[in-house]
């Protein structure tokens, strides 16, 4: 059993791509070994990466592939043997197959009798196999963004490959990629170790050799050391803790080979800047961790993760350098904050005329006007439905909502749009309702983000997004497949989330009607389908409802999102009961009967149900079903009106004995037209009356 080490060394890989590439390379190498029958039953796989390398170590590689038996077919028997003696052709085939002439066999094929031999396919040595196949696995790695670097562009890869280690125990497996030949030599930390190559004697030595050259190749270990170092450095801030940020830990883990942490400080006076600005500068621009006190308030410190372990003097230099950069950034932010205050948001509304929203849809000023019209209509609707909205605050907030796009601070920190507007509105004394609405307008950005806490913010968020969606659809820019350049799906998800979580009495058609644009029918249809699909996504992916429940619920209607959720919840709760399953089966049967009757021309497709003639009900079973259904219908109707769907469904399930008996005793498609028509009326009426919560025929029986 041998150990394999495969390392590809390259210029710094983008941090965001490393984890996926490491996993993929590992999977590819292991799969290659398995496919080539070189993987021992007992084996261990380790994968490593740093910004400059991806590596896989497999302990338990077979020295060679096991031999395999293979049946070879040769020439026709009559050609290979004359008078029981092997001809030249027969002997040649035996030689080729590696067997004695005596071992050749006669087989029958559709074409006649042929010579065959059970040849032993000799397994190839692991090194030989890997020599031929390993480089292709490296070349096949997926990268989000590739480059060429060699003349004539022989290969594309994330960055130029600079060395390759391919070792099977002590022996180098000759591999070539990107003009680089494999060897047993790797490289250590760029600065701390320099350019001297490091020899690896055996795969087992890999981590140790790198560690001695200031490289920790094990990602988990590096992450652990960073977390420990963050803890340790923060201890010198009394009562302080570093603000947990898993994504940032990942980033700095993939930016370093030999990490350490330095604690820096900044002047307390910068704490007057909003925390959002300070944290964005530290986290997004400088990749620093913020330090907070027990109450979660920022302390004037930061933690920088370094790719070195500097000596004492170096630490001071590096700390000082980082503090300098942060000070300059904070100064900028403070400068922008002050400059921006000179022009209040109200004076910026006209400036939006020169900020493009979309080249065909005009400026943000145009968009703001449209947003305002929508927001006003939605507020009116809400008011008339008993939800109090501070309309004057809303009317103030909507026109100002996009004005922060003209501020220096947002030009510098685009990720703070909306938030900056809200902070400025507060600072300019526009009132908390206005400030909150502006502040929260882009939330939820990701589906897990919170929704705006105030109704005015919710209305602004909905109006802004529905305007964008409808306008984009209007000029044919709806998302297709994986392409959604204007993030319209995300916008619609946010609307669904706001409506679902707030219970605002607004339905989809309210939103469409609130948009002033005149829409043609095709676009309207696309929009309905788009929102239907978003609601489906929400119910399935975020609320975890079974797909058939979602189909059953949305088949009835999808206009009202809260209602759809309530129905999905109720259906999920009762679908397990035998009675409801029986009802579902019976309803499926009713649909089939009605469809077949239509296909045979025995039922008018446009027929209205609800007109059962008592006189024509002959069988006690159909009389009983009619009576029970007629009694139950208003009860269910009332429960549905009150959205007591679970109770309603349980009541519907009580119909089961009548339905079962009906199908047991009564034949619907009888020859007598009046009887048949009446029975079709009866089942159509039952189906119609009790399918308003869900289309049970969509349910898949367990």
């Amino acid at each position: 059993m041998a150990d394999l080490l495969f390392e590809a060394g390259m210029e710094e890989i983008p941090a965001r791509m490393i984890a996926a590439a490491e996993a993929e390379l590992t999977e590819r190498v292991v799969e290659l070994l398995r496919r080539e029958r070189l993987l021992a039953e007992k084996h261990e796989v380790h994968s490593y990466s740093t910004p400059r390398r991806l590596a896989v170590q497999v302990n338990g590689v077979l020295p060679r592939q096991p031999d395999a038996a293979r049946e070879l077919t040769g020439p026709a028997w009559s050609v290979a043997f004359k008078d029981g003696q092997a001809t030249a052709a027969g002997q040649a085939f035996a030689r080729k197959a590696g067997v004695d002439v005596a071992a050749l066999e006669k087989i029958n094929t559709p074409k006649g009798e042929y010579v065959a031999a059970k040849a032993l396919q000799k397994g190839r040595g692991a090194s030989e196999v890997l020599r031929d196949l390993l480089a292709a696995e490296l070349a096949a790695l997926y990268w989000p963004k590739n480059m060429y670097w060699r003349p004539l562009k022989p290969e594309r890869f994330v960055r130029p490959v600079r060395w390759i280690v391919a070792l099977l125990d002590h022996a180098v497996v000759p591999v070539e990629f990107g003009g680089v030949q494999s060897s047993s030599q790797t490289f250590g930390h760029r600065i701390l170790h320099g350019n001297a190559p490091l020899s690896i004697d055996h795969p087992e030595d890999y981590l140790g050799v790198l560690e001695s050259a200031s490289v920790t190749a094990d990602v988990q270990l590096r992450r652990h050391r960073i977390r420990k170092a963050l803890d340790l450095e923060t201890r010198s801030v009394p009562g302080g803790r570093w603000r947990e940020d898993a994504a940032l830990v990942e980033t700095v883990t993939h930016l370093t080979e030999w990490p350490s942490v330095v604690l820096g400080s900044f002047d307390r006076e910068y704490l007057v800047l909003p925390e959002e600005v300070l944290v964005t500068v530290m986290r997004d621009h400088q990749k620093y961790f913020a330090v907070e006190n027990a109450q979660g308030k920022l302390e004037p410190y930061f933690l920088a993760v370094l790719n070195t372990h500097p000596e004492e003097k170096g630490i001071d230099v590096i700390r000082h350098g980082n503090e300098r950069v942060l000070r300059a950034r904070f100064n900028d932010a403070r400068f922008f904050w002050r400059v921006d205050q000179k022009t209040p948001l109200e004076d910026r509304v006209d400036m939006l005329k020169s900020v493009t929203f979309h080249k065909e849809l005009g400026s943000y000023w145009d968009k703001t006007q449209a947003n305002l019209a929508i927001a006003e209509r939605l507020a009116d609707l809400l008011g008339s439905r008993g939800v109090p909205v501070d309309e004057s605050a809303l009317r103030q907030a909507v026109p100002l909502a996009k004005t922060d796009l003209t501020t220096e601070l947002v030009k510098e920190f685009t990720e703070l749009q909306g938030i900056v507007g809200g902070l400025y509105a507060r600072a300019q004394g526009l009132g908390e309702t206005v400030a909150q609405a502006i502040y929260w307008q882009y939330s939820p950005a990701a589906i897990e983000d919170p929704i705006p806490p105030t109704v005015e913010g919710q209305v602004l968020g909905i109006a802004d997004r529905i305007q964008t969606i409808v306008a984009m659809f209007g000029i044919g820019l709806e998302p297709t497949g994986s392409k959604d350049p204007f993030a319209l799906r995300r916008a619609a998800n946010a609307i669904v989330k706001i409506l679902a979580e707030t219970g605002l009495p607004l339905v989809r058609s309210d939103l469409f009607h609130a948009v002033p644009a005149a829409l043609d029918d095709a676009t309207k249809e696309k929009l309905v389908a788009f929102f239907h699909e978003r609601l489906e996504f929400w119910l399935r992916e975020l609320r975890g409802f079974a797909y058939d429940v979602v189909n059953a619920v949305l088949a009835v209607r999808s206009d009202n999102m809260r209602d759809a959720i309530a129905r999905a919840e109720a259906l999920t709760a009762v679908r397990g009961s035998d009675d409801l399953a029986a009802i579902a089966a019976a309803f499926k049967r009713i649909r089939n009967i009605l469809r077949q009757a239509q296909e045979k021309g025995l039922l008018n497709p446009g027929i209205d149900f609800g007109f059962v003639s008592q006189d024509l009900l002959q069988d006690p079973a159909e009389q009983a079903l009619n009576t029970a259904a007629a009694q139950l219908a208003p009860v269910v109707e009332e429960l549905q009106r009150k959205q007591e769907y679970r109770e309603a469904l349980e009541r519907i399930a009580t119909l089961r004995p009548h339905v079962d008996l009906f199908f047991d005793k009564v034949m619907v498609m009888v020859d007598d037209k009046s009887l048949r028509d009446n029975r079709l009326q009866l089942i159509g009426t039952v189906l119609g009356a009790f399918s308003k919560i869900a289309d049970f025929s969509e349910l898949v029986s367990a």
Partner: protein
Amino acid sequence: MTAIGSASNVRVATQALTFQELLLRLQNFWAERGCVLAQPYDIEVGAGTMSPDTFLRVLGPDPVAIAYTQPSRRPADGRYGENPNRLYKHTQLQVILKPPPAEIQDIYLDSLEAIGIRLREHDIKFEEDNWEWPVGGAWGVGWQVMLDGLEITQFTYFQQCGGMDLDPISGEITYGLERIAAFLQDVDSIYDIVWARDPKTGRAVTYGDIRLQDELQLSVYNFEAADIGKLWEHLRLYEAECQALLDEFHKTFRTEKAAERHEKIHDRLVHDGASPPPDEDLRVALRRFPVLGAYELCLKCSHLFNLLDARGAISVTERVAVMARIRNMVVGVAKAYAAQKQRAEAA
């Protein structure tokens, strides 16, 4: 926290380079590694990349090793000299290596040592940062080089330029000189950078002494005084001239057009017995054609566009349209330049 005090002590030990020493050291460094030192391009550009020494030289197969400093003008970035970190005009040192040597990163790191940065005492990271200039149909992948949290260099492997794939590619190293100088001298304001120090008296001349007035007055000009009507007029004139040159180039040299012309000549030969103009004439005409003149006109247009933008004079619809027109010109020039080189050499 005693960081500031202790670090300052560290700094005093070695005399940091002045701004001009920094320029000289870096230029020397690259000259010693085989680079031709070019002078800054004498037409306004927004970045060193726009100089023809980069934008056009990266096209085609000829090897290039060139370095030059380039004052880069970005009218909208002006701050009247009031912001300690922002300039209307900053200085880049641009290095172009085609093809990039395998050890280009190591050479770059050596250049930092050459300007007095002892790498073992600092934190250096190469962080992903891809570069794109849509107007030039140009992009590349690379890094921003971070030194103790400060972005000091943009490092790019050019992949496309003028909408054309590059083969071989070029490596581009762009040093931000003011930032590096402020870092070396440990000053918080660009204007406090020591530009030069009198060897006899030790008297320092600062960046502010040399450039503050420039920043103030040009900010006033860019934001307040520039005559919008005149700017538009300049833009139209430059654009028309550039477009006329490009049209002329295409009319005379486009491959399909040339083929048509050959056919006509052939017809004439057969029917009239007239003698064709020798190919030599066409070659000379091609070599003489002022594609570089057209490029300078593009640069003028680009700068005027930036000025109009800083003046807030470009409306939404105009903006998209004007940018598209400038892009067409810039990409058109790049294609013409590549075609001119290729066919002149093939001939």
